[in-house]
């Protein structure tokens, strides 16, 4: 061997490297495997490495003595500098930079070099080399390591220098010792600790080499990547942890885990060959993990519940604290369950920990769900449905798919890339779960993606749309909520428009309950819409989904009138007093057939009567009792004279009614009042509309109103007379057109009367609205008092 002169920095550097490779702390001989790894890390072609080996005499000696090692390192530097490898070059080449090894290691070496030049205590490069597994003290590991060593040795024919791989359980403080100067005694520990991983490591290299059928000693080593990894391991703690972990994993598998079998251990050993990332899981490892996963959860796409995972990992006999930490790291989506990827990561971490590697503070990239999937797509199974979602007890994927787009726009994009998708799904599983559940709740209807109450709009068309939306969404939540909203909403909504649209909430409720009915009957829908509006004039509207095209205005107006009827009927039904000023004009209309054409007076008077709260009751009986119309007409006629009185009476009736209902229930009163107001309001507009619109159209809505009123008929007693009046009015109105031909003047007069009734109704409406507001205020105050009293009840 030629003399080798090394600079101080080189000396230090080489010593460190030697110590690094000197697993057996022989201080003389360096493990070939490690040296090979180191050389591989130098990123030199194999032949160069061979040449170096030859030159330094290692091949001759069969081992790397310190001198040989140093020479080799020098030659590496020479080679890296581009100089031809010559024995003489060792000393001839001046100012040779320190040999560079794998990037990671190079960095450390560079640091090392600089540190050497500056600080001889820079052991950082080696700190992470091989953190002696703390758990090395386990005898079991030792035994297993022996086993591993033996196979290795047997398999290792390329590394004659396979030192006795005494599974020296490196001292627990090895990582720290490593950090200290390797040359120190602690370094010895490190070396010993290295011996542990070293032997294992070389077996890995051997195994890989064997698998790779490497020929040359060097080539026999595991593929460069692993070796480089190894070197990089040296540079970074995790890498070393992986090294030790793998052996430990083997040990763990065999010892700690009852499942471990010889083949499995071998697999693991082979698997433990490190890749670029120390935390990477090899295929074999992954396969093992997957098998373990299957034992717990047959469905690879499913979750392992936390309790089962806890049981499983408790078997590893790791302290609970560490298991808890491992869980924190591996449960990426924080859902309390482990998907296949999460499980593999957790398993990997347990193995690492068992081998003495410190748990990282955060999950290594290679263990992150998506990366794992990337690496091991084969094992992970189908990507699209994966990430445990398909099998997860959480929402079924199908439900997710339709709902997801609506709920999560990014889903389609994620699906495009399986890994991303998986990652996303895993990471967001928890969040997704909620959304998915929500989506599940709603019928898998793409249109009903968003199902929450939508503020009811004032415009009738929108109301229709909303109703349609509600109906379409059909979701339970929307339907129940919207009607509820409607009902609970402010009663004192705009009356003019809303009232016309408003109807008794009862109708709306019914309508909602049977969405189909809504669609089937546009009028009903309109009424429902109106109801909604009435009840929740400004309350959040029903459902967001694109509502059906709004009803045509004309029909809407008609429907409004129809709604009025309904509202009247409903309100009357609900009202105990049931005296809501209803569109006076409405009831009489439906009665045209029967209503003899008494006259314009009656309609007008009837309207006036109708303005009173009794309209609804009048409307109710009108329809079925056409005959009554004649009576009512007479009555109406008689009442016409007393129109004003009636109005006053009606008002008073309304008030008492309201007051009476107050004690009963402020809410109910409010509602009823609102309804009353709605009805009155509706009636007013209806009347107005009636007055303005052709007589023909009004009768129809009136009829319908009567029908709706019929529903409420049983609830109202007082209404009979009033309805009769209304009927009379209505009858008179319809009769007008018939008499057109007879008397235009009569028509005009009826028109005037209608207008008058409209104005009367409008006045009444406003008054009722004010009453409604008052009642609402009372209700609010009562509610406040109630709430105030409640806490005390709890105490």
């Amino acid at each position, binding site marked *: 061997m030629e003399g080798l002169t090394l600079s101080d920095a080189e000396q230090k550097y080489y010593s460190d490297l030697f110590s690094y490779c000197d697993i057996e702390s022989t201080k003389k001989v360096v493990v070939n495997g490690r040296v090979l790894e180191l050389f591989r890390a130098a990123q030199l072609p194999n032949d160069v490495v061979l040449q170096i080996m030859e030159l330094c005499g290692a091949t001759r000696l069969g081992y790397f003595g310190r001198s040989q090692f140093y020479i080799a390192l020098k030659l590496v530097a020479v080679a890296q500098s581009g100089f031809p490898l010559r024995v003489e070059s060792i000393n001839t080449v001046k100012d040779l930079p320190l040999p560079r090894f794998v990037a990671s290691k190079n960095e450390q070496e560079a640091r090392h070099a600089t540190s050497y030049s500056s600080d001889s205590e820079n052991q950082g490069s080696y700190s992470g080399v091989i953190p002696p597994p703390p758990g090395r003290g386990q005898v079991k590991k030792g035994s297993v390591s022996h086993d591993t060593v033996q196979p290795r040795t047997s398999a290792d024919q390329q590394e004659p220098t396979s030192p006795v791989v005494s599974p020296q359980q490196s001292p627990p403080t090895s990582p720290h010792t490593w950090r200290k100067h390797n040359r120190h005694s602690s370094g010895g520990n490190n070396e010993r600790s290295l011996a542990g991983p070293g032997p294992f490591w070389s077996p890995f290299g051997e195994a890989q080499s064997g698998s790779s059928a490497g020929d040359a000693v060097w080539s026999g080593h595991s593929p460069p990547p692993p070796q480089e990894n190894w070197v990089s391991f040296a540079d970074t703690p995790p890498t070393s942890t992986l090294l030790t972990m793998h052996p430990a994993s083997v040990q763990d598998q065999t010892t700690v885990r009852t499942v471990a079998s010889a083949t499995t251990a071998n697999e693991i050993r082979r698997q433990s060959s490190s890749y670029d990332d120390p935390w990477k899981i090899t295929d074999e490892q992954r396969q093992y993990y997957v098998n373990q996963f299957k034992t717990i959860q047959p469905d690879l796409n499913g979750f392992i519940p936390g309790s089962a995972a806890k049981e499983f990992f408790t078997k590893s006999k790791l302290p609970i604290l560490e*298991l808890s*930490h491992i869980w*924190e790291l591996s*449960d990426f989506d924080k*859902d309390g369950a482990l998907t296949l990827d999460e499980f593999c990561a957790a398993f990997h971490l347990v193995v690492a920990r068992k081998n003495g590697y410190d748990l990282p503070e955060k999950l290594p990239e290679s263990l992150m769900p998506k990366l794992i999937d990337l690496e091991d797509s084969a094992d992970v199974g189908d990507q699209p449905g994966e990430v445990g979602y398909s099998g997860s007890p959480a929402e079924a994927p199908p439900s997710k798919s339709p709902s997801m787009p609506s709920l999560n726009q990014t889903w389609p994009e994620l699906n495009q890339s399986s890994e991303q998708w998986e990652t996303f799904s895993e990471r967001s599983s928890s969040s997704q779960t909620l959304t998915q559940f929500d989506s599940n709740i709603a019928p898998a209807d793409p249109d009903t993606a968003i199902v929450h109450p939508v503020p009811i709009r004032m415009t009738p068309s929108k109301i229709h749309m909303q109703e349609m939306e509600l109906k379409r969404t059909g979701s339970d939540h929307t339907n129940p909520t919207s009607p509820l909203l409607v009902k609970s909403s402010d009663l004192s909504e705009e009356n003019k428009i809303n009232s016309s649209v408003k109807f008794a909430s009862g109708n709306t409720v019914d309508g909602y309950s049977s969405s189909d009915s809504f669609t089937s009957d546009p009028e009903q829908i309109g009424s429902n819409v109106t109801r909604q509006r009435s009840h929740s004039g400004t309350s959040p509207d029903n459902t967001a989904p694109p509502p059906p095209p709004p009803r045509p205005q004309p029909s809407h107006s008609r429907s409004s009138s129809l709604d009025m009827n309904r509202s009247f009927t409903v309100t009357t039904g609900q009202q105990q007093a049931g005296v809501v000023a209803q569109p006076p004009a409405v009831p009489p209309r439906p009665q045209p057939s029967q209503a003899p054409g008494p006259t314009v007076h009656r309609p007008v008077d009837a309207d006036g009567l109708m303005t009173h709260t009794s309209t609804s009751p009048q409307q109710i009986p009108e329809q079925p009792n056409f005959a009554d119309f004649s009576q009512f007409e007479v009555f109406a006629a008689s009442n016409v004279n007393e129109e004003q009185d009636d109005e006053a009476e009606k008002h008073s009736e309304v008030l008492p009614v309201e007051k009476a209902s107050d004690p009963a229930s402020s809410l109910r009163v409010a509602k009823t009042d609102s309804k009353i107001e709605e009805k009155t309001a509706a009636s007013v507009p209806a009347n107005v509309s009636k007055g303005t619109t052709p007589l023909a159209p009004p009768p129809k809505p009136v009829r319908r109103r009567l029908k709706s009123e019929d529903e409420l008929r049983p609830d109202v007693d007082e209404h009979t007379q009033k309805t009769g009046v209304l009927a009379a009015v209505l009858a008179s109105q319809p009769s007008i057109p018939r008499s057109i031909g007879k008397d235009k003047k009569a028509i005009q007069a009826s028109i005037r009367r209608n207008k008058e009734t409209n104005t009367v109704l409008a006045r009444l409406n406003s008054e009722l609205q004010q009453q409604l507001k008052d009642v609402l205020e009372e209700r609010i105050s009562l509610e406040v008092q109630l*709430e105030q009293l409640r*806490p005390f009840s709890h105490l």
Partner: protein
Amino acid sequence: MVHTSLDVVDEKISTMGKALVDQRELYLGLLYPTEDYKVYGYVTNSKVKFVMVVDSSNTALRDNEIRSMFRKLHNSYTDVMCNPFYNPGDRIQSRAFDSMVTSMMIQVC
């Protein structure tokens, strides 16, 4: 003092009645004459109470800050809870949790 604050929290919970999820229950009133600190209470859905004692020496923390801190605390706590190895009632030893809390404290201070 923490126990007294807990009593106050319990009292508040009882009075709240329906609104159990009091996201932010600022109880600034607990200022001892000598202690000069503020105690913030926060109750979760599961009646788990977070009590935060803040020294009033530093500029009074804004309400939003306190609320955000509680929110983060709540999130971290739920993450800890998800761990099957964690027994409810034990002292939380989660490193992530501790680091989050520490970072939060540092951020405030």
